[in-house]
């Protein structure tokens, strides 16, 4: 019996030494791994996809490979509804290697604005749940997660149509000019065709016009729309109905009262 007991003792001791050495070196290995997060970038593509890119650089100067390095992002609105999520994985970052990972989250702008047209006119704040996962020494899974808030800038913030100004009184029909202004708080440029319909106090359609607006990101737009209203149809009060015709803003519909 003594020999098997001795063998168990030897085996146990060897395994313990290996385990402790592995644990210590694994912990120290993590200290020598550096993560750098680049500047987040947002773009709107031709097919109306908003792409949020987050570049990561991982330099592994530790003793072991890093396995399954993954970045997961979930963007949700103030009510908790998920707007977009994505996960990017790098199978392995070898010892001494520096790897770059570009994590993209794509949001279909058309669907997004159809979901809640307030995003066209009001700024909002979204909750971004980000997590970074990896396997230290390809064995021990570790995950770091955090919540950050992301602000959404409305492309037609403070959209307003001013008081109609009458042009020459002697012309038939009357030429009416209405000032139009908004601030583009979005990260993309706005180029959109608008259809504006003018209704008088009795609810009759007295003018219908189309115009296009262009505003660079983070800039203000000040312009006007013109109507030709039949004589006698114009009233001091009434309303405008604005329809946004160009995707991805074609969900937009707005009613503005005047007078």
């Amino acid at each position, binding site marked *: 019996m003594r020999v*098997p*007991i001795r063998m168990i003792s030897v085996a146990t001791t060897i395994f313990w030494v290996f385990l402790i050495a592995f644990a210590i070196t694994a912990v120290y290995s993590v200290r020598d791994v550096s993560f750098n997060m680049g500047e987040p970038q947002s773009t709107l593509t031709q097919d109306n996809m908003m792409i949020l890119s987050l570049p990561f650089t991982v330099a592994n100067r530790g003793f072991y490979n890093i396995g399954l390095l993954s970045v997961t992002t979930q963007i949700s609105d103030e009510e908790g509804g998920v707007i977009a999520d994505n996960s990017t994985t790098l199978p392995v970052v070898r010892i001494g290697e520096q790897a770059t990972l570009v994590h993209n989250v794509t949001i279909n702008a058309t669907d997004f604005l159809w979901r809640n047209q307030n995003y066209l006119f009001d700024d909002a704040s979204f909750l971004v749940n980000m997590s970074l996962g990896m396997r230290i020494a390809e064995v*021990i899974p*570790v995950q*770091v997660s*955090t919540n950050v808030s992301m602000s959404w800038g409305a492309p037609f913030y403070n959209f307003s149509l001013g008081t109609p100004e009458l042009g020459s009184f002697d012309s038939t029909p009357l030429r009416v000019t209405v000032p139009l202004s908004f601030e583009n708080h979005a990260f993309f440029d706005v180029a959109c065709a608008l259809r504006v319909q003018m209704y008088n106090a009795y609810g009759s359609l007295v003018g219908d016009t189309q115009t296009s607006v262009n505003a660079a990101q983070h800039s203000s737009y000040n312009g006007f729309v013109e109507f030709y209203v039949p004589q006698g149809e114009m009233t001091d009060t009434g309303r405008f109905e604005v329809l946004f015709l160009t995707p991805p803003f074609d969900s937009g519909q707005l009613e503005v009262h005047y007078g």
Partner: protein
Amino acid sequence: MAEKNGGLNSKLRKYTFKAVKATLKGILFYLLYIVLWMMFLAPVATVLPGLQRMIETFVMVYVVLIIVSELTSGTIFQYFFDAVKSLFMIGYLIMALGGGTMSITMQNINLAIDLHVFLGIIMLLSLLGLAKAVLQAINFMSEKAEPPQPLPS
């Protein structure tokens, strides 16, 4: 009378030797802990606030078990305490490591470490230690019941 005194002296020597050996083992284990702490664990403890208390409690109980096990060497209780050591190791680690998943929250950042594999290996090694203690106890009892016979020349 002299024979009785000699027996007493021999017993006293035996117990003193056991006590010294137990103390030395305890001190050695504690020194090992201090070296490991200063060299490797102290930087980690700055990130994990409860780590020092967790490890100190473990070391304290383990040193007590080492000393008691050494003091009772030569009796069946030594193996009993060896088995207790292994079971304590399993139980304490399961409790301290939250069943294998550790989670720490600092400000807005949550760090989760899945130590199931690590815990599994420690448990297997501790079970091996437990098996060793049981085998040693069986061996001890069998040797006591049947003293080893000299090999025929």
